[in-house]
């Protein structure tokens, strides 16, 4: 079992650009959640996907959007990047019947210059 995988590992963008991050969930998991983790902080919930629909959302602007595919993999898109979007973006997968058992991927480190 490969666990949760994310790509790319690192990314450098400039202000105003757009970025797409990708996540493949752990085998047997159908729910994907995305988090933003700033340096020295705990992860902050962005949104959660199940059955290809956004089920709930944290306090993030509409510049943050996502998608889930039929094979449960997911994308996070961020438009009009700001310097403050620089962070580690984490994907977590879980079974729909056990949302408290979230398994995290290694993250994508995004740097916005």
């Amino acid at each position: 079992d490969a666990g949760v995988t994310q790509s790319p590992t690192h990314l450098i963008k400039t202000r105003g650009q757009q970025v797409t991050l990708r996540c493949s969930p752990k085998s047997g998991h159908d729910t994907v959640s995305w988090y933003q983790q700033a340096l020295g902080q705990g992860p902050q919930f962005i949104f959660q996907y199940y059955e290809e629909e956004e089920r709930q959302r944290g306090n993030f602007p509409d510049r943050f959007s996502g998608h889930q595919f039929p094979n449960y993999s997911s994308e996070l898109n961020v438009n009009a990047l700001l310097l403050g979007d620089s962070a580690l973006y984490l994907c977590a997968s879980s079974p729909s019947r056990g949302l408290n058992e979230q398994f995290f991927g290694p993250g994508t480190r995004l740097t916005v210059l």
Partner: protein
Amino acid sequence: QKEVEQDPGPLSVPEGAIVSLNCTYSNSAFQYFMWYRQYSRKGPELLMYTYSSGNKEDGRFTAQVDKSSKYISLFIRDSQPSDSATYLCALMQGRRYSSASKIIFGSGTRLSIRP
């Protein structure tokens, strides 16, 4: 007031010591309490979770929840240098899809075990 408060540390102890990590929270609706370990530049790793009040033990790790005090703890016995990491407490109200199933994380405590 933050929903979850966690002492950021850093906390440095000698190898073999008992470590106590703690979080306090304000919302009495939280029912699921998790502890994650995060090594530098890695994703968080789920260590254990507890439902409602009580203790749960897994090897050298013990999680304790006191809902009356809104206080949760993680104890590490016989600490090892490999335990050096950031420990995150995480709380959730419910397991089904609703606003209650968001996981709220503490800011993490940096722990260093000295050989």
